[in-house]
């Protein structure tokens, strides 16, 4: 029998990048908030610069729900989906603890891809089968929330456009921002300076990419130590601006905000009038029901869709907020395949640093260049970064050996010479939603509790493949201009959209309830006191990391709830 707990104002399901931000404006407004997190608090003492420990999967400690609830993937309906690893982690702070911390705003174009494409190139240029819509809000409407997030968590970067005034030191293609970043950009390494010079020789505009990492002490946290072991790992000095060290502790101090760890949410309860009434969860083998006036789902794109589909009721027989059959639709994962790598005839000294310490070029992203003579829309962000670990360095060398044994003296000599001479660029490219790409519950595979796991049915289409080829060539040129002796990778994008840390859609945001799950504020079109946070509400990807955008949206949804409390909870 479930224990029914005392009713609270708001339950947030998941305290990661999105839920971990939403708790702050809610707590500051005086509402009573309970955050249910599947993972636990992490300790910086466990965050040693130790490649083997990370490779063995011994970090993060604490319950990892993601490992039990793996995903199945297939390219299209004719295939049987196979199980893959879940790419995210569970902890207070969620994947913002171990992410690369690249912290971008989307460009204004990303909010109106459909109308801008039609305006500039005509309706025939919308790729066949794409369900793309304009966002129900513009970049300008989201700008104040981008600003709040940057200042609250601490983002390092250089503005390229303050109120329309361009600055070559920043990204001149970005949308206008109200003010400068709170922190100057992360420092440049020798390798980065080489890539800056190479970009200049090509006439391309490069800049130090923005990072949710402190470039100097900020809000009681020290500046980055650049010691490496940042990607897929936690920061031992809390210089990475995860929500675990920024908004979550601040919310705990600010108001009536309680964090419940190791709480595994199973379903959301619904009343006959279609409103949500609370959340069922398991903790230490015990079942609880937490009643609440409002529920915010912030459990990542896969779990958001899954939780809604699992929460069936009289009011929602096909799953919560799914009477229009839109939950799981418009899914896509960021087109980051088709990596391009380079081998240089000199050492790069990339042993230290963080992957967010990088140089970006936006000349070929979004609609920053004329697509009239091209056969695709969108583009990619060129990005190259530092950080190298010993065993990863050796693995990376292998691709350049061109046959021959991967052991013995000849191999050893090659490894010795080239371990610090290669680099790889994962290029983030515009990805669109399509009518036959979606998430649903796997008909066969279940988690240990007996609940079906989420199934991805999605594949990249022509538009993504064409961008892949186009942008790989640009990256090749950049590497060659920097003195690379060899470049690999033609940008070929594999068919299936794999499980990704950049997953979008499934509960898309839009004004039309026939094609979207949530409204312009992030609240369900069907269940008015249910809000949804995370990349699952995003209808376009842009050519850059989603985290700061979904954090800005989460802040906006939480603020909307606090400011319209009486209307929303009734």
């Amino acid at each position, binding site marked *: 029998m479930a224990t029914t707990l005392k009713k609270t104002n708001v339950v947030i399901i998941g305290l990661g990048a999105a839920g971990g931000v939403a708790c702050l404006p809610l707590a500051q407004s005086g509402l009573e908030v309970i955050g249910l997190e599947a993972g636990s608090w992490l300790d910086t003492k466990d965050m040693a610069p130790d490649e083997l420990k990370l490779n063995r999967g011994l970090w993060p400690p604490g319950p990892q729900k993601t490992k039990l609830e793996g995903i199945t993937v297939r390219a299209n309906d004719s295939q049987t989906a196979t199980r893959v690893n879940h790419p995210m982690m569970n902890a207070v702070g969620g994947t913002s603890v171990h992410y690369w911390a690249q912290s971008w705003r989307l460009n204004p174009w990303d909010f109106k891809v459909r109308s801008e494409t039609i305006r500039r190139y005509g309706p025939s240029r919308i790729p066949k089968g794409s369900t793309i819509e304009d966002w129900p809000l513009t970049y300008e409407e989201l700008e104040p929330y981008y600003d709040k997030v940057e200042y609250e968590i601490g983002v390092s970067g250089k503005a390229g456009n303050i109120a329309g005034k361009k600055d070559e030191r920043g990204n001149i293609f970005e949308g206008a921002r109200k003010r400068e970043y709170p922190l100057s950009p992360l420092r440049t390494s020798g390798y980065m300076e080489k890539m800056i010079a190479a970009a200049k020789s090509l006439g391309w505009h490069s800049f130090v990419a923005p990072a949710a990492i402190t470039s100097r002490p900020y809000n009681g946290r020290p500046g980055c130590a650049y010691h490496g072991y940042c990607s897929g790992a936690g920061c031992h000095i809390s210089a990475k601006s995860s929500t675990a060290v920024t908004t979550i502790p601040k919310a705990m101090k600010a108001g009536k905000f309680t964090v419940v760890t190791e709480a595994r949410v199973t379903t959301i309860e619904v009343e006959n009038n279609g409103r949500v009434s609370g959340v069922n969860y398991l903790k230490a083998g015990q079942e609880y029901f937490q009643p609440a006036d409002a529920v915010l789902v912030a459990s990542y794109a896969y779990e958001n869709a899954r939780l809604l589909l699992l929460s069936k009721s009289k009011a929602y027989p096909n799953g919560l907020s799914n009477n229009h059959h839109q939950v799981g639709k418009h899914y896509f994962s960021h087109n980051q395949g088709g990596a391009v790598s380079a081998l240089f005839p000199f050492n790069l000294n990339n042993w230290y640093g963080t992957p967010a310490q990088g140089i970006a070029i936006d000349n070929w992203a979004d609609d920053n260049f004329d697509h009239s003579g091209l056969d695709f829309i969108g583009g990619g962000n060129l990005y190259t970064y530092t950080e190298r670990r*010993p065993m990863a*360095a050796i693995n990376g060398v292998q691709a350049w050996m061109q046959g021959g044994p991967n052991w013995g003296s000849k191999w050893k000599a090659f490894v010795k010479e080239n371990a610090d001479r290669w680099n790889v660029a994962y290029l983030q490219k515009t990805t669109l939603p399509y009518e036959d790409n979606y998430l649903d519950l796997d008909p066969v595979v279940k988690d240990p509790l007996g609940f079906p796991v989420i199934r991805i049915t999605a594949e990249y289409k022509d538009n993504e493949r064409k961008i892949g080829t186009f942008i790989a060539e640009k990256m090749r040129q950049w590497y060659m201009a920097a003195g690379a002796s060899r470049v690999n990778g033609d940008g070929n994008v594999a068919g299936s959209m794999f499980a990704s840390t950049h997953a979008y859609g499934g509960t898309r945001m839009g004004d039309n309830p026939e094609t979207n799950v949530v409204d312009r504020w992030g609240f369900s079109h069907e269940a008015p006191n249910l809000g949804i946070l995370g990349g699952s509400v995003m209808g376009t990807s842009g050519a850059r990391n989603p985290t700061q955008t979904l954090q800005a949206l989460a802040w906006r949804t939480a603020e909307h709830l606090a400011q319209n409390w009486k209307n929303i909870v009734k």
Partner: protein
Amino acid sequence: MNNDCLTRRQMLQRLGGIIGLAAVLPLPARSLARAQGLSAVANAPVSLTSAEAETLRAIIARIIPADENGPGALEARADRYIDRALAGALKNQRSTYAAGLAAIDAYAQSAKGSVFAKLSTSDQDLILTEIQSDRATGFAGGGSGQFFNLVRTHTIQGTFSDPFYGGNENFIGWDLIGYPGARVVVSPNLQRMDIKPESSRKSAYDYSMFIKGEF
């Protein structure tokens, strides 16, 4: 943060109760070993039999050999790493090693008339090539190539992972590829391209702020 000199108690903890050889090493080697906090360990393995350990040492000495480019996996004590890990993080692969190492010796015996460790290095390379390419017989499960890949992976781990785990002795692996060691603060100069950064000669666990894990 700088704790080059470990206490005797810490050292004993790291040795897992095995009597060190440090006492009989020449002085420079001894201080080096101490500086690493690893010390030398008696050759007696903790999980492998001595016959298995001998075969393993001969294999890893060919996977990353000592040559004109410096010492190899044996000198880095990748065998000690594997031996300890088979009693720790890799314990579920202990039986795979028992079967695999025995199969290598049996194959060497049938092909060249002697156990693997007693063959010439050129015969050893020949045997390993056959094993890697699945041409050797007598291997269970995924065949000889799968076992070779497992040993290769662990040899790389033992040579290039943090010395805390028992390999990478004297930072042999990290020096080979130029990795300048674990640090918790990195100055701008250490990220320049026109200098070769000096090695910290430190394990992550030489920094007292981190909790040690299992081998």
